[in-house]
């Protein structure tokens, strides 16, 4: 990733410049056409290929399938936002499909690269995981609110609009 890309992104504000530089060196930029699927729901997260993605340009749509085969849109991931967090941290099957809505430019950080980073830069890796954890907390809070709201209303509409966040 080009030097300076992370500068000015809200997510990376808490990182010292030297650490941002290290991250810029390990994130790999990738252009993808409209319709490209980065993550497919139901697939097993593989330690060798799972990655967390940062959207640089364009938009990524996150969908989940209902039992009847129809799709629910749970999030749009925009420039400066992440998706694929669960795949970086766990081996769980992918919970959603993440697809390019138009031509997109993303930067990915693969799990093996991150594991190497952790062994070399413990503090930086921990700060990065803390940033991911903050995103997950926001998603969990959104989900809690959605469940309670749906119970109160007694119908399913609230569930349809739950912010699935940038979880994959």
């Amino acid at each position, binding site marked *: 990733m080009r030097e300076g890309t992370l500068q000015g992104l809200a997510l990376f504000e808490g990182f010292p410049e030297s650490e941002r530089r290290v991250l810029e060196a390990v994130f790999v930029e990738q252009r993808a056409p409209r319709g490209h699927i980065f993550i497919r729901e139901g697939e097993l997260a593989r330690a060798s290929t799972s990655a967390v993605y940062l959207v640089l340009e364009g938009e990524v749509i996150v969908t989940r399938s209902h039992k009847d085969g129809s799709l*629910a849109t749970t999030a749009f991931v925009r420039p400066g936002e992440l998706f694929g967090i669960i795949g970086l941290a766990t081996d769980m099957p992918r*919970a959603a499909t993440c697809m390019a809505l138009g031509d997109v430019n993303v930067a990915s950080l693969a799990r093996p690269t991150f594991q190497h980073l952790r062994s070399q830069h413990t503090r930086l890796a921990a700060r990065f995981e803390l940033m991911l954890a903050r995103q*997950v907390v926001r998603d969990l809070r959104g*989900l809690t609110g959605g*469940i*309670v709201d*749906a119970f109160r209303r007694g119908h399913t509409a609230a569930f349809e609009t739950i912010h699935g966040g940038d979880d994959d």
Partner: protein
Amino acid sequence: MPMTPSERLRARLDPTLATADAEWLAARMTERRGSAGDVVVRRGEWGDTLTFVLDGELCARVDVDGAQLDLARIGPGHWFGELQFIEPGPASATVVALTDFVALQTRSDEIDELLADRPQAAAALIRALLVEMCERLATTSAGVLERTSSTEYKIATPEHRKGWMGELLSRLFGGGGQR
């Protein structure tokens, strides 16, 4: 022989964490004691503290429109307040002590100090919390869609929906099978 606080912490965070790091973290955290009946956290109240239980038992519950739901029993080796520790904010559940208890606590504004002083210990703590929360998010999100897209849900009675809400919130709270 009962486990020491640092052994409990190490078992919960990462069994490969150096003993010295686990001991340092346990010593760095603040001891909190309480009595049966104490309301340790109230749902909706702002907080920033992670509580790791060493001894005793507590219960996490929510009250929605008069329906009280017990989400999880929290005993030795388990924690609560992890969302608020990572991102200070309102508590998602009320936590009540069922017995006298002893716990270790640390606050969100101590994370930077932990990282500066003992990165390996801080990293193990952050990672354990991240992995656990990701698992909860994945299983609960799937559960919500599975449940609400079913015809069964659409024609369910309020009592049934209350049961499902409890099940989903329990998963979110990390209650697992401990409800």
